[in-house]
């Protein structure tokens, strides 16, 4: 206990982690993913884009741990290298929607009135679309590039952040300490930035972790249908798409391993998000 010391939040986090093995494992998993994303490309045994046609479509073995694809490329190396791109897309998209959503939501929740209602309507319209379809259409509209996958993913995540920040700011704006800050002469901007937003951030961090898993699935889905990332770039969704042609002749490893990578990444973020929610707000535990 004493070794951890520090703030009470840290101690509480450590306490929950000790009692909640799954969250600890998920946190370790996310850390491992980050390490793989950073150092993976330097460590892989094979060049992820170098083809070696005589060795095409080999099942997993001692040399090629996850087999080879139709061009003889090493599936394991491609999986590792792809981690960086997949995580980068998801993290960038979620960060963009987090920042923009928090600011818009906080302004609406604080100001209320006409602006709040107008933004609320806009969010309703955005939510009236099946979100994956909306992302598809936006990538088509903006152009078939990776940046646009990030933008589309950010936009379809935006409504959740706006609603969350709006609701959280709205219930706090008339509390005593906000009034006190106003009485001390702080302007509206300062109240929102220095007092309201920091109080909303922890809850939004949970939302971010849960959203990251979803963003990974979304981006992989888009590249699976041929939007955004282009071959031969290693990316999990594209690897599944390329392997799909060989599944009915029994080449399972081309689909199973990228699928497993996607599943593990999403699982880690989801479990971490659930765990973070428990740490921040034990009442919301289900």
């Amino acid at each position: 206990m004493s070794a951890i010391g520090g703030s009470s939040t840290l101690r509480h986090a450590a306490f929950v982690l000790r009692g909640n093995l799954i969250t600890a494992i998920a946190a370790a998993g996310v850390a491992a993913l980050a390490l793989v994303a950073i150092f993976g490309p330097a460590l892989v045994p094979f060049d992820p884009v170098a083809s070696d046609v005589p060795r095409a479509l080999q099942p997993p073995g001692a040399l090629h741990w996850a087999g080879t694809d139709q061009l003889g490329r090493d599936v394991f190396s491609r999986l590792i290298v792809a981690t960086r791109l997949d995580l980068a897309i998801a993290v960038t998209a979620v960060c963009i929607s987090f920042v923009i959503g928090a600011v818009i939501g906080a302004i609406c929740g604080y100001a209320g009135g006409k602006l709040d209602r107008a933004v609320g309507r806009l969010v309703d319209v955005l939510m009236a679309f099946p979100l994956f379809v909306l992302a598809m259409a936006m990538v088509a509209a903006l152009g078939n590039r990776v940046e646009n996958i990030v933008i589309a993913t950010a936009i379809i995540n935006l409504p959740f952040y706006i609603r969350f920040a709006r609701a959280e700011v709205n219930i706090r704006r008339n509390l005593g300490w906000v009034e006190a800050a106003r009485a001390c002469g702080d302007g509206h901007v300062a109240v929102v930035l220095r007092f309201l937003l920091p109080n909303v951030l922890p809850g939004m961090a949970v939302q971010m972790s849960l959203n990251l898993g979803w963003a990974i699935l979304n981006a992989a889905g888009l590249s699976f249908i041929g939007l955004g990332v282009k071959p031969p770039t290693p990316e999990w969704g594209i690897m599944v798409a390329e392997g799909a042609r060989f599944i009915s002749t029994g080449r399972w490893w081309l689909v199973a391993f990228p699928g497993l990578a996607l599943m593990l990444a999403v699982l880690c973020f989801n479990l971490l998000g659930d765990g973070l929610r428990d740490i921040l707000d034990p009442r919301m535990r289900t």
Partner: protein
Amino acid sequence: MGVIGATLIRAGRRFLSSLPALLGVLIFTFLLMRVLPGDPAVFFASGPSAGKEEIEVVRKQLGLDRPLPEQLAIYLYDVGRGNLGRSMMTGQPVAKDLRERLPASLELTFSALLIALIAAVPLGVLAALRSGSIIDHAIRLFCSLGVCVPTFVSGLLLIYLFYYLLGFAPDPTGRVDVFTTLPPARTGFLVADFLLAGDLAGCAAALRQLMLPAFTMALFVIAPLARITRASMLVSLGSDFVRTARSVGLPRWQIVVSYALRNAILPVITIAGIVFSTMLGANVLVEKVFSWPGVASYALDALLVSDYAPVQGFVLLMASIFVVVNLLVDVLYGIADPRATVA
């Protein structure tokens, strides 16, 4: 005023309040089309080699030279008459294409939702009854894993398992064998049409084709449905009326099914509505994996060859279905819980 009357009034009011959202959707799709790359006039002219004057003529014909608000008005008028433009890919009006392909998508989505509900509600009830036990944890683990596997991966792995390894499922392409004679289209749902035509063999074949894609989609949505069933059952099992039912010695199944579950089903209906619309989106991936001739794969094919009218029509259709489904959920809610209509 009876319950039905109250429900109708509620549905009407709800419909009116969803109109602004629908209008917003229309404007949004219109704007989306306006920012799409490529000039429709160039597409509709005789070809890339068409002269400048010819393109200008086509532009005038299409009304693209008018101011935006006027174009929007024309677009709204067209959509109101059911004119969604023409697909360059198929050469047919988009509305006709969508009408022909919508039943395939709906058949798939409805069967998947049915499978998911049949699996999820008992799982959720079981988890709530044995809350904290091994069964509860096993169900939770299954659900956590279910939402993490992308549909396109689980679909392909199901194909590997049931088509390649076990030889149990048919070739995973399309709704029927190419050589099958189709039954007269009455409902548009092939399984039902075969049944109506009295062709049992055809019905079985269509069912076997439907099985894998429907299961793939169901797998993805069992988790949220089971979770909400469990949470809502826990609340209702802990309520006073269940305690009373127990204390007067009613049979256990009656307590669970007609007291607890009936009261716990409302949130499940709401989530089922949301899940339905999620599935319409996820359809894109499943239809692609199984070459299912639905609206989503149609829009996707069009998207990849820069044919935008079908994409626009598809997005509009999906958003409208979403609004209608929400309305339906609301009405169902009113029927399941008469108190909701009073408020």
